[in-house]
């Protein structure tokens, strides 16, 4: 076996794969944030908690109802998305006329409530979730576990599908128009409040889907969201919030960079995303794909 820059290839590609998987989660989560922000102008701080709820929904469906992973992949995001719709109707819809900061604070409070409830019910330790796709492929230079390949493929499909829906379909053009001028779109007979509600539900559903995908890889734990969400915020700042494509590219890219850092300088692997954020802010304050506002 050859060595690549002093690192055995199995280690290098192993970490790159891990990075790609983390990147897949960053991409789906920052995509969900971008979709919600686009129409609601709310930074959904509860996104991490909703991701955690997705994982727990899958775990509960399996443990209490015997519903397997493949069904949970659809059912859990729908259920959690429905809670998102309730949240939007009951709470978020009351603060749209206020400064953006109140949306952030409200969803932060929501995140605390969700995390607290799950912690008091399930403790801070994790619950295991069986791997629905055991085994893997030997690619010669590395071993590729089936489930991880599935995660990367599915998240790419979901990300590109969302991008296509927003940028290339009629529904997407309504959404984009409503982002610019909700009053005008309303005047053309589009039910903008309902669109806002469904958009929030969809964004929350995306977070929950990421949670279901994460369940077999990480422990299903009440803390899984709060640790991830801050990295996702950094991804959002780097990518620039305005762009759907920006969240996808930046999410995967930063996951890979994190994986590489783990190989060459493991001490910095927790902070590399934030260091990149600082550098990007210096050069392009609006983010890589963002437009200055």
């Amino acid at each position, binding site marked *: 076996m050859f060595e690549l820059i002093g690192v055995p290839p199995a280690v290098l590609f192993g970490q790159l794969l891990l990075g790609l998987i983390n990147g897949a989660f960053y991409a789906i989560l920052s995509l969900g944030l971008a979709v919600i922000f686009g129409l609601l102008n709310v930074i959904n701080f509860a996104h991490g908690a909703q991701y955690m709820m997705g994982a727990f929904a899958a775990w509960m469906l399996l443990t209490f109802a015997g519903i397997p992973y493949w069904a949970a992949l659809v059912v859990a995001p729908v259920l959690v998305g429905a809670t998102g719709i309730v949240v939007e109707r009951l709470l978020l819809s009351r603060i749209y006329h206020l400064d953006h900061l109140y949306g952030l604070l409200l969803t932060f409070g929501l995140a605390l409530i969700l995390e*607290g409830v799950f912690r008091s019910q399930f403790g801070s330790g994790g619950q295991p979730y069986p791997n629905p796709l055991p085994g893997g492929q030997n690619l010669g230079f590395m071993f590729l576990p089936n489930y991880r390949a599935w995660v990367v493929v599915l998240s790419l499909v979901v990300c590109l599908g969302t991008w296509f829906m927003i940028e290339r379909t009629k529904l997407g053009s309504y959404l984009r128009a409503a982002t610019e001028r909700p009053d005008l779109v309303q005047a053309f007979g589009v039910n903008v409040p309902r669109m806002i509600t469904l958009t929030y539900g969809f964004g929350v559903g995306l977070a929950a889907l990421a949670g279901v995908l994460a369940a077999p890889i990480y422990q299903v734990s009440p803390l899984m969201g709060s640790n991830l969400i801050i990295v996702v915020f950094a991804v959002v700042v780097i990518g620039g919030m305005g762009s759907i494509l920006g969240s996808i590219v930046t999410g995967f890219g930063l996951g890979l960079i994190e994986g590489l850092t783990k190989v060459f300088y493991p*001490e910095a692997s*927790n902070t590399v995303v934030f260091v990149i954020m600082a550098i990007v802010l210096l050069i392009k304050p609006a983010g890589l794909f963002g437009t200055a506002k």
Partner: protein
Amino acid sequence: MLVRAEETTGTPAGAPAAARRQGGGATFLWLLAAMVAVGVVAPFFAYPVFLMKVLCFALFACAFNLLIGYVGLLSFGHAMFFGGAAYVCGYGIKTLGLTPELGILAGMAFAGLLGTAVGWLAIRRQGIYFAMVTLALAQMFFFFCLQTPFTGGEDGIQAIPRRPLFGVIPTTDDTVLYFIVLALFLAAFLLIYRIVHSPFGQVLKAIRENEPRAISLGYRVERYKLLAFVLSATLAGMAGAMKTVVFQLASLTDVAWQMSGEVVLMTLVGGMGTVFGPVVGAGIIVAMQNYLSGIGEWVLVTQGVVFVAAVLLFRRGVVGEIAALVKRLRARGEG
């Protein structure tokens, strides 16, 4: 923009400027006197360590409020200044043998330097982006503290000795230390009041109200924002360092992002942009944590509920709502 009460003065908006200033000053002095009186009497009724905790967090919230209440910048990463100064102060006192006042100064200096670097980066973005940038940088600092050897990792810096103040005044007695902390808090509180009511503070408020106009008037907005950020960071550092002296402990809790959230909550509950709001808010939240600690994880839920309720129902905070009520009553009395 964020709602805010007229500085807790409660004078009607129509009053002439000079009279309003005078009236506001008188109200402030009465409230200040009441606060000092409560502060002096309190240790005879409540546990001094609990009161010192309230004072440390009250100062932390006041420092945070300097930024959110008067410049309109929501920092979600203030734990890095609070906790960073706590570590520096703890290390200085325990390992380098500094006296408490030097330890606190060292902590403040560190927080000020860190604040300069972070502020310089963060003020490039506004609003929620600013919040996310400060949060992310604070998380980076958290990981730094987790990995660097001098912070003691998961254990933190423990058993920090309570050395005598200036080398002579003993601080081992809780009541004595309480009055020292009270004096420090009052000094910092008056400093913040002074900053807010200086020409510099007026410019900050102008930036909060209408940044493009402030720029067009020729103010170098970035400099004002950065200076406000550094001042806020330094005072937050003072709060963290004081906390280290009181509890003889500096740990990862102080730099964790939950701490940044708590200070936001204290300020929001008390009243953003009011002079006394953060003090009241800190008192409420610290008391809540103290008396609810028996219910375990539900404290988190309670805090979240308070957060949501504050945003939906009383955005002006306790002090802000009272001030608005007083203002309404007076307006009715005169009209």
